[in-house]
């Protein structure tokens, strides 16, 4: 079981309020991802749940029990740190067994669980090495191993993949997702990587300056962002946001259109512009199109084999049904 409820949780460092009172419920077995710009309080929130920071106000409940003042070790949560935080002088085996040893489990049970975890994580051949003799991905797996042997009620991950190279990151992302499928344990995952958030989450929590901007499934957030911030934050490349006459025309203060919802044509369209920088990704090509009277270029997606060159004039037609409209407060107009 791992149902975590935050009730008006608040955190201030001295005078600075990093997290204003915040409510959030994480259901048992859910994979929740916290995203938000750097410094918005994702790590702080995670550390509050873990018990590594004391709350300044409010209550944290785990499975209905008040856990606000409970020390980290007795909350039944396991955490995987960005720097892995392995114990460098212990072998992989001892690292993974450490929480069991602290819990006073007998040696046979320790061995059984460590070997079980090692098998799941493909670490069997490395059990007698030191962390210093492992690659980044292997170290990450040891850190995860150390978390799973405890059989916690929830896992907390703080940007666990940010030290890995791109290829490894994709691999580990899948492994963590698979682990979640198998264990069905609650996982809370902090990242600022769009793709990780979209692909792994059951539920994404978008934070800005300690405030929850929106909570929802990845597709919810993609299709119906609640405000301009979420609209601009979720999706890669970012949604195009337009103000001024284009927005007025559609009865809003800001309108947003995703790069993939704009049709490109050589001869006719709603807007006309000049092609600027283009980014070829193989499967897709993203063009930065400069419109008359707009300083920011519009990002437009086209197929992989479209041949447009710098300086070409093109015509764009947004898909009006997929246009997002926001009012003066930045809130979505239904």
């Amino acid at each position, binding site marked *: 079981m791992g149902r975590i409820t935050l009730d008006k949780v608040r955190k201030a460092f001295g005078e600075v309020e990093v997290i204003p009172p915040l409510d959030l419920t994480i259901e048992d077995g859910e994979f929740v991802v916290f995203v938000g710009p750097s410094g918005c309080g994702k790590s702080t929130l995670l550390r509050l749940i873990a018990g*590594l920071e004391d709350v300044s106000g409010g209550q944290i409940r785990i499975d209905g029990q008040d856990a606000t003042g409970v020390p980290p070790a007795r909350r039944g949560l396991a955490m995987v740190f960005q720097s892995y935080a392995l*114990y460098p002088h212990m072998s992989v085996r001892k690292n993974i067994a450490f929480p069991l040893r*602290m819990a006073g489990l007998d040696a046979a049970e320790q061995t059984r669980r460590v070997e079980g975890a090692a098998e799941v994580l493909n670490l069997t051949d490395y059990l007698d090495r030191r962390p210093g003799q492992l690659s980044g991905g292997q170290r990450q797996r040891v850190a995860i191993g150390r978390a799973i042997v405890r059989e916690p009620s929830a896992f907390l991950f703080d940007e666990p993949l940010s030290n890995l190279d791109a290829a490894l990151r994709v691999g580990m992302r899948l492994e963590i997702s698979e682990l979640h499928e198998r264990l069905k344990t609650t996982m809370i995952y902090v990242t600022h990587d769009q793709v990780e958030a979209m692909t792994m989450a059951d539920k994404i929590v978008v934070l800005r300056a300690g405030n929850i901007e929106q909570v929802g499934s990845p597709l919810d957030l993609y299709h119906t962002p609640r405000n301009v911030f979420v609209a601009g934050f979720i999706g890669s490349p970012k949604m195009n946001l337009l103000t001024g006459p284009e927005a007025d025309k559609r009865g809003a203060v800001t309108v947003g259109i995703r790069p993939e919802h704009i049709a490109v044509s050589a001869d006719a369209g709603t807007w006309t512009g000049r092609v600027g920088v283009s980014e070829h990704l193989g499967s897709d090509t993203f063009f930065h199109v400069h419109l008359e009277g707009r300083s920011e270029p519009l990002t437009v997606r086209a197929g992989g084999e479209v041949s447009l060159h710098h300086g070409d004039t093109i015509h764009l037609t947004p898909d009006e049904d997929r246009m997002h409209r926001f009012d003066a407060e930045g809130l979505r107009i239904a």
Partner: protein
Amino acid sequence: MATQHSRSAARIMMAPAVFLLLVWMLVPLCMTLWFSLLDYRPMRGTFDCCEGFANYVRFATSSAFQDAILTTLIMVGGILLITVIGGIFLALLLDQPIWGQGVVRILVIAPFFVMPTVAALVWKNMFMNPVNGLLAHLWEFFGAAPVSWLTEAPLFSIIVIVAWMWLPFATLILLTAIQSLDSEQLEAAEMDGAGPLSRFGYIILPHMARAITVVILIQTIFLLSIFAEIFVTTGGGFGTRTLTYLVYQRVIESQNVGLGSAGGILAVILANFIAIFLMRIVGKNLDK
């Protein structure tokens, strides 16, 4: 090519300095070796050549020699024990966020700047003096009879004085070691259910192992040649005669240069023996 060339140029440039250092070290060593083979007692005017190893045999078989070695080992060991344990303790305390951290740290380091002679005199006259010493007053305050430290517990007193001087050194090195520990490791251990004692035993202490061996090595080398503190406090009496002090007595007090030189050479051999032994331990620790 370039580095090869500059390397040989560098060698030539360094040669005078190396030569000077060699002479500086080798001449006294050779003279000591030479004297140790003589019957050289300036006050009596004896300067007889080629005693052979008679001086060595006499020095090594005297009961004073064995006592001196024992005293040296107890003294060095005691000081190491106090400074390492005390240093770990102080380093842990200084690592805590406290008010006026900067000032406290400078205060802790202060004893290291006090010259050995001065430190010993201060301790002897201001703390350990049985009539006027601070400790005597303290004892009297609690209604106990003042202790005459330097006569009743002379070895212990010297150990305390020297440990007081070297504690800052150990604290400083161990503090930097503690500060280099990744705080996420401690947090991970905390989440893994390790209490403060387990965190110290399993995480902090192994992390400091290297620094501790370095402290032990450096201190041992310096502590083997303690002299001023003994000279100023007990003058080598009451069982505080270390090997260094014994050599001094043989040469200056008994005016037997030959015998003293032989003792000096034995001390050099002993020091090297200990140094090699320690280097191997440290080397093993540093490899990890």
